[in-house]
């Protein structure tokens, strides 16, 4: 079993969302949804988010984190915590790609 499989099996892999990223995305959500505070377990749609707001959020994420997310990625994972994990995964897949291109 690899280290990563083990962490996932223990259910602790979620703990590794960078705290400062969680904070920043929470700010973006709060500003867009016009709410005061967003907790990690809050769902985008429960807070009154719609598809227009979602596009605004995704565009901010693209600017600040340099990562392209599909609209439906949020439908699959509507909580802030899950949303951050999706960005983290897309981001790391992206980094590998950049590197390969640089190498070829």
């Amino acid at each position, binding site marked *: 079993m*690899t*280290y*990563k*499989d*083990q*962490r996932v099996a223990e259910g*602790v892999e979620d*703990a*590794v*969302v*960078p*705290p*400062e*990223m969680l*904070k920043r995305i929470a700010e973006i959500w709060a500003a867009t949804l016009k709410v005061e505070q967003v907790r990690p377990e809050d769902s985008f749609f429960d807070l009154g988010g719609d598809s227009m707001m979602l596009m605004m959020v995704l565009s901010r994420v693209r600017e600040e984190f340099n990562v392209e997310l599909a609209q439906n990625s949020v439908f699959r994972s509507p909580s802030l915590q899950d949303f951050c994990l999706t960005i*983290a995964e897309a*981001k*790391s897949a992206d*980094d*590998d790609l950049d*590197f*390969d291109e*640089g*190498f070829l």
Partner: protein
Amino acid sequence: MKAQKQNLSQVFSEFAGALHSVNSGCVDKAYDDEERAELKRQLIALYDLTATWKNVRAWNWGFDDEAIHHAIQEKLPHYNAADTDGFSEQLYYFVLHQIPTYIQAGQHVLEVGCGSGAGLNFLSRCHQETKFTGLDLSKVSIDSANRRLSRPPGLKYIHGDAESLPFPDGQFDAVICVESAHNYPDFGRFLSEVCRVLKPGGYLSIADLYTCDRFELASSLIKSAKGMSLVVEADISPWVKKAVRKRMDPGSLFRRTSREAFRFPIGPLNERAQMLAYGAEFVGVEDDFILNTVKRLTTRKSKTRLVFDRYHHHLLCREG
């Protein structure tokens, strides 16, 4: 030659004594400045001496994980070819890649206790756009690393003390520390120094071997560290043991190179000494007459042998 031999045995026994002092007893011993300086002198003497040995093919106990092996192979297809088994490289890759911020162009990573500099050199080849700085208390290691490996502007080595880092506040995006912290007489001071030189939101990733006592102390210092919060504390011994077991195999590259570095009968003795230094007791190597003899010879003076029976990874985040 004789003077050199005497010097060697004195250096080894002082090193063993200092290591014993630092790693036994679970209370913070609060050495005074003079005691700490003396401990560091005794520890560094050995690292200075071994810094120029050419036959070193392993720079830590290693890590063996299939996912990490493949990840490295995609970047550097031949990383474990020729004169290395790749386990030392895997441990470095693991420690850096547990940091959840992204290895981005222009980020600056510090390694505290870089030794020969080989680990950081490897990471720098994996991430050519990242800036790496290595720090070590052994001046001989730093000089040799700068001569053989440094590659400005992405990779450089600096002489300095982990407990008094020669850098301004908030300079680094991440700090890594691989099998070095067990040498620090004042682990708490090291943590506060790292916290000082990290940017807010920056990470410290530590992998190290521990005695039972030292782990208790280090773990409690980590959990109560001012300005830093613990993100992950993980027992990584299964993956370390996997690598160590492969190295302890009689036909391994590790054993062959350490045996062939010297002529008979020094060769087989060096092979056993290297095995003991790289975790033979951690995996409980099967009865080996020469190994047991070397073990007896090296424990005669300190009487009790240090038992490094756990291996952990810690990830800390500097609060913003």
